[in-house]
């Protein structure tokens, strides 16, 4: 039944392309204001990063307190027809001597774009951002989370897609066909952050309901007065897995978990309203599928005080996170939490910046602290620091299945995985 939904969408794509053919013919098509009338252009960017993660405690599975790694990323972009057509290729490779799951290459992006008057077509592996809030990316579901890179869920894997974007006076309409599904990445038991778990990726599975069909999504966004509004619909494989316990459970032995990906339908809403130095933000979703339906909301504001700290700007952030799964809310989602944070833009020669905050479950007292800061060194280097700490919850030990099944205890899995990460990146 779900399989059949891709067909009407294709029909819609065709209908829309007919419409835009008629409407967009008269205006001159310029796809990139900086492309000019020069011939094909080729751009090449690269960066090499050295990373060191330090953990105050050995991992629950006996992992080391230091985890060094190195990564390289290239971006090659070629455009022609005054920028109307372009190819983007962005390979990435990380070498991690400890963790085999982080010793891997990935194609971050590899896509062709055509930009016409009032429309765009993209085909290939791409990354797309949806949303507004700072503490959690709730509605952003097209791209799978690359969890081995960072547990903040900001790193994403490229998703194969064919997409059409229409730019109209009444707003922007995007339609996506998403063939192929990419599973979430997890650290191996030699790497971190794992908690007391061993993720059995070899046996992971897409449930039958989600198999043999093409995912699709629609998004409409528009600036209405002061409000930037986005509405999205996603129909496909849930990017967030459920976990099944596999094999025997023994005290002191990591619990083996198998990720399982079900089917979902999600309606998403995101909005931002700027008033003076206040930015109000909202994201909300309703998700159904083979798991029980649930709703979640993140809403809050950021207030920017320009010159509050001499030359530096200060941003104050406050957000409320709600998920109606309550105590059954999985790890990395927040049932009833408050995020408070501050951002400093130093406005110095090195473009230094800092973002620090904490997400607190005010009922249980569980806290997730985070700090991100970076500064440029010389002309080509950037030094970044990132720290995360998990507090206010009892640690979950290897083999403690009773603890794991206790509502609200999952966060205890990360208690031994507090870390500080330093990264030095050379840009070319």
């Amino acid at each position, binding site marked *: 039944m779900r399989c059949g939904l891709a067909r009407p969408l294709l029909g819609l794509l065709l209908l829309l392309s007919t419409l835009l053919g008629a409407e967009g013919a008269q205006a001159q098509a310029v796809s990139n204001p900086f492309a000019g009338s020069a011939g094909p252009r080729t751009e090449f960017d690269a960066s090499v990063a050295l990373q060191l993660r330090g953990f105050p405690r050995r991992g629950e599975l006996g992992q080391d307190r230091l985890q060094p790694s190195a990564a390289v990323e290239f971006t090659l972009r070629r455009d022609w027809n005054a920028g109307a057509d372009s190819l983007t290729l962005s390979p990435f490779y990380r070498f991690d001597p400890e963790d085999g799951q982080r010793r891997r290459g990935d194609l971050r992006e590899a896509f062709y774009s055509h930009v016409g008057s009032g429309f765009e077509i993209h085909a290939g592996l791409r990354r797309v951002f949806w949303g507004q809030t700072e503490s959690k990316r709730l509605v952003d579901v097209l791209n799978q989370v690359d969890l081995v890179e960072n547990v903040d869920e900001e790193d994403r894997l490229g998703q194969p897609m064919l997409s059409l974007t229409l730019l109209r006076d009444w707003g922007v309409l995007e339609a996506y066909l998403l063939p192929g599904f990419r599973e979430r990445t997890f650290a191996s038991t030699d790497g971190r952050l794992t908690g007391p778990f061993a993720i059995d990726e070899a046996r992971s599975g897409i449930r039958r309901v989600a198999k043999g069909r093409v995912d699709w999504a629609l998004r409409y966004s528009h600036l209405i007065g002061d409000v930037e509004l986005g509405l999205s619909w996603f129909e496909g494989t849930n990017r967030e897995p459920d976990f099944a316990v596999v094999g025997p459970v023994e005290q002191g032995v990591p619990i083996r978990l198998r990720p399982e990906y079900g089917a979902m339908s999600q309606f998403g809403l995101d909005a931002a309203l*700027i008033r003076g130095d206040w930015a109000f933000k909202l994201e909300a979703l309703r998700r159904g599928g083979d798991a029980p339906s649930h709703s979640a909301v993140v809403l809050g504001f950021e207030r920017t005080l320009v010159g509050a700290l001499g030359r530096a*700007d200060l941003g104050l952030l406050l957000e409320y996170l709600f998920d109606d799964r309550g105590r059954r809310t999985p790890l990395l989602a927040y049932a009833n939490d408050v995020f408070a944070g501050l951002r400093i833009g130093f406005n110095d020669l090195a473009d230094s910046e800092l973002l620090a905050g904490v997400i607190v479950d005010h009922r249980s007292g569980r806290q997730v602290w985070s700090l991100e800061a970076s500064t440029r060194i010389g002309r080509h280097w950037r030094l970044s620091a990132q720290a995360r700490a998990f507090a206010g919850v009892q640690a979950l030990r290897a083999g403690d299945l009773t603890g794991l099944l206790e509502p609200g205890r999952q966060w205890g899995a990360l208690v031994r995985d507090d870390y500080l990460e330093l990264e030095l990146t050379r840009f070319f």
Partner: protein
Amino acid sequence: MRCAWSASPLLFTLFLLLIGPGTAAAREQLEAVLADPAASAEARGLAVAEAARRVDAGYGDELVAVRMVLHDARGSSSERAIRIATLEGVEEGDRSLILFDAPRDQRGTALLTWNHAQREDDQWLYLPSLRRAKKIAARNRSGPFAGSEFAFEDLTAEETSNYRWRFVGEVSCGEGRCYEVERFPVESWSGYSRQQVFYDTATLRIERIEYFDRRGDALKTFVAGDWSLHDDRHWRAGYMDMRNHQTGRRTELLWSDHSFGNGLGADDFSTAALQRLN
């Protein structure tokens, strides 16, 4: 900072032929207001600003490359390379796009602004690593732009309605003569209490601006030079200098590769366009 070609009365006829009636009318109107003894200082000040804006109208769109050299008080310096695209607003305000090329760690970062005469501007910051176009508070415009001595509000084309104006007089400046006009920001978020603006009387280009902070103390001095004329009517500075008297910091801007009438449209100044800049 858009200033344009204009002419002394002697060149008036030739000017009419070259430019067309719009620009000449702006010039004529200004001369009439300045010659009118009954015109208030406010009316005269606004007339200079309006005329300066009108003589530069009709550029359609503009592309330019800028090298920024930032100096701090200790003598350290840092460079940025940016490109700017501007779309002249017809019914709505101007739209502009600023793209960072250097330093390399900032490459691809972009700022999209939709100016509005009657309400707060809309502004988005594009973060290339996240593929995210983030709507930001336009109030950020009073803070330093990219760590420089220029605030964003110093860099964008002014809507005359953003200020109250007052004509001070005609003074000598450099080799020529200037209209000295004071302007007072209307927006409460502005970093300034007032600015003294010096318009070249012959061309209506802005040659110099003195900025005063919210306490009324002298804050910064802006000087433009190395002028070039484009399409026989648009004057553009090749060099700008902003000195902060309170901190000793200084920023130089070197402008190059101006091009006008590139056929840009509203699509190029959309949040979708931010994803494909290079």
